[in-house]
C-alpha cells in the first residue's frame, strides 16, 4: 500500500574546530579528560559569572549558514531555555529562538543533496551542550545516585533544523552524507569524533500526527530508528489505530523507539532574551568576510575538479564525498600533475583497499582517518602514476606494486627496480611454469580456450608459482600461444 512519508531532521553538530567553549575559555576538547577537570566558574554555573560569546563559533555558524543557503538576520541574540536537569549547570540552556523576531544565525535555506533532490532548511542556530550523566551501576533505573561530569557543559553546538521534506530513509542518508561532507570541508567539526554529530528526527505518515524521535546517537542510527518508527506507524494505521503525537526515545540496545518514560506535567521553557549577551551586529561587511574567508565547499570543489582537471562527474563526486580523499588527490597533484591517471588510481584501486580495511574494522565501531593502517601517501601514488605514464611498468604490475607498498610503505619505483632485477624472463624457466599451471588447471584451460579473459587467471597462477618474479608480459604471451596450440 502506498503511503506518503514526511521526515524532518534536527541535527546537532559540535564545533570541534573551535578551541574554546561557547561562553568561556575552557578547552572545547573534553574527550578523555578526568571528570570535572575541564571546567571553570562560568561553565560550572557559579554565582556571579557571565557568558562570554566566542567569536570563532559565530564565524563557523555563519559558514554553515551560507553553505546551506540560509539568510542572515541583521543581528543575532541568545535566549534562555529554562528547565531543570542535573546535567544543566545553570538550569537553563543558552540557545537561539525565533518566536519574537529572528535571533538565530540562519533561516530559510535550501540544500541540494543528490539526484536533483533538495530539502528546505528551517534554521541554523548556536547553542551550548549540557554536561554528561553517568550511572554508577550502569543504568538509569538501578543507580541510587547519578554521577555528573561538567566537562562537556558549554561546548559549542550548531543545530540545523530541516522542514519535513524527506520522503524516505534513503534520502535522509544522502542528505546526512552531504551535510557530513560540508561540515568536514568547512573544518568546523571532525565528524569522526564520538558524539560530535547527533541527529534527532520526526516522522509522520499519510498526513497523520508527527512523532519526534530523540536519543539517536549517530548518523548511522538515524536510518535504523526511522525505519523502525515508520513500520510501527504503518502497522498502527493499517489496523486503524491513530498514531499519537508524541516524543519517543530511540533505544539503541533493543533497536526500538519507546514511549517517553514519565507522564510529565507540561513543560514550559519560559524563553526570554539573555540580558548578559549583547545583540551581535552582522551586516553586509560581516557576510562578505565570511564568504571570502570560508574554505571551499564540496560542490565548488567538485566543479573545479571537473573543469580544471577534466575529471568525470562521477569520479569528482567520489573524491569530494570524503574530504580526506579530495585532499589526498590534490596533494598528489602537487607532486606530479596527471589528474585523470591519479584520480583513477585513488578512486578505483586505493579505494578498494580502504573499503576492505574498513570492513574489518566495522566491528570495532571506531572511525579512523581514511588512510589509517595504510602506509601510502600522496608521494607513493604520484610515483606510481609517473611509472605508468612513462611506460616503465604496465598497469598489472602497478596494481601488484600498490598491493605490496600499502603494507610496507616502500616507494613504488624502488620496488619496481627490485622486481625488475629479479625478473624471470628466461624463457625456459617460464615455459616450465606455464606447463605446470596448464597441468594443474585443466578446467580453466578449457574455459580459456572459449573465453580469452580467463587467460589472466592462468597468468595469475603463473605469477604465483614464480613468486611474482615472472615477467607478466612475456608469460601472458606464452600462455596465449599455448592456448592456441593445443
Amino acid at each position, binding site marked *: 500500500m502506498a503511503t506518503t512519508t514526511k521526515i524532518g531532521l534536527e541535527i546537532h553538530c559540535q564545533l570541534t574546530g573551535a578551541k574554546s567553549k561557547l561562553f568561556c575559555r575552557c578547552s572545547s576538547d573534553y574527550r578523555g579528560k578526568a571528570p570535572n577537570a575541564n571546567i571553570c*566558574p562560568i561553565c*560550572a*554555573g*557559579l*554565582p*556571579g*559569572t*557571565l*557568558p*562570554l*560569546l566566542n567569536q570563532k563559533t559565530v564565524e563557523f555558524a555563519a559558514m554553515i549558514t551560507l553553505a546551506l543557503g540560509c539568510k542572515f538576520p541583521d543581528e543575532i541574540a541568545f535566549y*534562555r531555555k*529554562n528547565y*531543570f536537569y*542535573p546535567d544543566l*549547570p*545553570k*538550569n*537553563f540552556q543558552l540557545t537561539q529562538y525565533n518566536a*519574537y523576531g529572528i535571533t538565530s544565525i540562519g533561516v530559510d535555506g535550501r540544500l541540494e543533496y543528490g539526484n536533483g533532490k533538495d530539502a528546505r532548511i528551517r534554521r541554523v542556530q548556536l547553542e551550548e551542550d549540557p554536561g554528561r550523566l553517568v550511572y554508577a551501576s550502569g543504568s538509569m533505573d538501578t543507580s*541510587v*545516585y*547519578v554521577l*555528573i561530569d561538567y566537562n562537556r557543559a558549554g561546548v559549542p553546538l550548531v543545530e540545523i533544523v530541516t522542514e519535513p521534506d524527506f520522503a524516505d530513509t534513503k534520502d535522509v542518508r544522502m542528505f546526512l552524507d552531504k551535510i557530513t561532507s560540508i561540515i568536514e570541508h568547512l573544518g568546523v567539526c571532525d565528524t569522526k569524533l564520538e558524539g560530535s554529530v547527533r541527529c534527532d528526527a520526526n516522522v509522520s505518515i499519510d498526513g497523520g500526527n508527527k512523532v519526534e524521535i530523540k536519543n539517536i546517537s549517530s548518523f548511522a542510527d538515524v536510518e535504523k530508528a526511522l525505519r523502525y518508527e515508520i513500520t510501527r506507524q504503518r502497522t498502527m494505521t493499517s489496523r486503524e489505530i491513530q498514531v499519537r503525537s508524541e516524543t519517543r526515545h530511540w533505544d539503541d540496545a533493543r533497536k526500538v523507539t519507546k514511549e517517553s518514560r514519565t507522564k510529565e506535567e507540561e513543560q*514550559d521553557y*519560559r*524563553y*526570554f532574551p539573555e*540580558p*548578559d*549577551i*549583547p545583540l551581535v551586529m552582522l551586516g553586509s561587511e560581516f557576510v562578505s568576510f565570511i564568504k571570502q574567508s570560508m574554505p571551499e565547499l564540496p560542490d565548488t570543489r567538485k566543479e573545479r575538479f571537473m573543469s580544471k582537471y577534466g575529471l568525470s562527474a562521477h569520479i569528482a563526486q567520489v573524491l569530494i564525498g570524503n574530504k580526506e580523499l579530495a585532499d589526498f588527490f590534490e596533494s598528489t597533484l602537487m607532486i606530479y600533475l596527471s589528474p585523470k591517471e591519479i584520480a583513477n588510481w585513488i578512486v578505483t584501486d586505493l579505494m578498494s583497499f580502504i573499503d576492505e580495511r574498513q570492513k574489518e574494522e566495522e566491528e570495532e565501531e571506531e572511525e579512523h582517518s581514511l588512510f589509517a593502517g595504510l602506509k601510502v601517501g600522496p608521494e607513493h601514488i604520484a610515483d606510481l602514476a609517473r611509472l605508468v605514464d612513462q611506460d616503465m611498468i604496465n598497469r598489472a604490475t602497478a596494481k601488484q606494486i600498490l598491493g605490496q607498498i600499502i603494507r610496507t610503505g616502500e616507494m613504488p619505483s624502488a620496488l619496481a627496480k627490485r622486481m625488475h632485477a629479479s625478473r624471470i624472463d628466461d624463457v625456459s624457466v617460464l615455459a616450465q611454469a606455464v606447463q605446470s599451471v596448464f597441468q594443474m588447471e585443466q578446467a580453466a584451460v578449457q574455459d580459456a580456450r572459449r573465453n580469452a579473459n580467463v587467460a589472466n587467471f592462468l597468468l595469475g597462477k603463473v605469477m604465483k608459482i614464480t613468486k611474482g618474479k615472472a615477467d607478466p608480459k612475456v608469460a601472458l604471451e606464452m600462455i596465449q600461444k599455448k592456448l592456441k596450440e593445443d
Partner: protein
Amino acid sequence: MPIYTLEAGQVVQGIKSKEFSAEEYISQLFERIEKVEPKVNAFVTLNKEEGLDRARRLDKKIRDGEQSGPLAGVALSIKDNICTKGMKTTCSSKMLESYIPAYDATVIKRLMAAGAIIIGKANLDEFAMGSTTEFSRHGPTRNPWDISRVSGGSSGGSAASVAALECASSLGSDTGGSVRCPASFCSVVGLKPTYGLVSRFGLVSYANSLEQIGPVGRTVSDVVSILNVIAGFDENDHTTTNSSKPTYSLQERKGLRVGLIKEFTEGADPGVSKMIYKAAETLENQGCKCEEVSLPSVQYALASYYTIATAEASSNLARYDNIRYGFDMNPEGYEWNSYFARARSNFGDEAKRRIIVGSYVLSSGYYGKYYLKAHQVRSLLKREMETLFKKYDVLIGPTMPILPFKIGERIDDPLKMYLVDIDTVVANLTGMPAISVPAGFADGLPVGLQIMADQFAEQTMLDVAYLFEQAAKVQRSPEL
C-alpha cells in the same frame, strides 16, 4: 577626632603622610565594630586577621617609600552578594550558606590593586531582593539613626556600616534602588552608575538587565574616589562599554539646569517633600535654575520593574539546586525532582515569591502581556527622560517617598513594601545614573535627595551632588 571617623580621602592622606598607621586605623575600626555591631548588625562576615595583615603590609610599603594606590588603607565593607575569593559569600541566603567563591569579582580585584582593605561582608536582603534588609537570614540591619527602624535595602549593611563609622566606604549593588534607598535612610551618599559603566563580573545576579554595583560613602568625594577605581570596560563582562577608562572629579559648575520631578515629590510624605523643596531652594541659591517637570510614564514604572526583575530573578536563581555548591544536604536517598524542590524550599519567603511571580509572567501565554509590555515601558521612560535631558542637566526628587519606618511594619505586605521603590526604579529601567545625597532630617529621620542624569553623564550628576553637599552641609554622625 578618632581616626575611624575619617573619610576615605583623609585616610589615604593620613596613612601616606604617616600621621597614623594603617594598622592603627584598622584596629580602631574593629574596636568600633565590636562596640556598635550588636546594635546595627551590618556585617555577615568580618575579615579581621586578613584586614590587619594587609594593613601591616601597607605600613611596611609606606616605610620603604614604595608607591601606594589611590585607596591605600581605606577600609571597605562589601555587600555579601559580590564574590570575594576565599571569603564566604552568602547573599544572606541558606542556599549559599557555605559558599566560598573560587574567584574575585572584577571590582574587588580593582579595589585591592588600589590598596583598599576589605574588612568584612555586609548584610543584605536575601539575593538582594528587598528594600529593608529584613529578608536576611542573619536578622535585619538596623538604622544607626534609630535602631528600631529599618536601614533600607537591599544594601542595608553597606549603608549602615558607613553611617555607623564601622568603615570608610562600601560597595553595594542597585537593582531597583538598593544602594540609594539605604543611603537615603542612613543619611550617606550612594551612587548607581550608568548600566554598563561598572563590571558585574562577580556580582551574584538578581536582575541582570537592571543592576549595577555602586559605591556608598559619607561624602561625594569618597564615592567619586571609589567610582574612579571600579569603573571602566571589563573583558569579563560583555555588557560593559568599550570607551576609554573614565575619571571623575569634583568641580565647581554654575548655572546648571535642574528639573524637579513632580510625580515623585507629590507622591511623597509631606515631611519628605518639604525637605526636597528646601533642597531645590538651596540649589537655586547656588546658581542653579530649578523648574518642576513631569514624567508621566512613572505610573507604569513599578509594574514594569517588578515584571522584569522577578522574571530575570526566577531564571538567575534556578542554578541554586544545591548540587555544585550551597549547604550540606546529602543527595543520596532522593529522586532528583524531590531533591531540587526540597533543597530550594530553603529560600526565604520573599525570594520564593519573586521566583513564582517571575515564572508566572514568563510562562506560556503571558510573555506579551507582562514581559514585553514591561520593556515597552522602559523605552517610554527612556524617551521621556531623554527629552527632558535636552532641556535640563539633571532631574531631582526624593530618593524615598517615606521616612525610615519601624522594623516589621511592612514585612507582611509584599505589595506595600514594593511601593517604596517608586522613585528609584526609573533609573534602573532606563539604565541612567542616579545618586542619593543627604538632604536633611524630618522628625529626626534622614531624607535623601536623588539626582539623576543622562546615560554616562555621571560627571554632571556629581557636579550637582557636590554643589548641594557643600551648600547644605548635612553630614553628621549618629550617636551610637
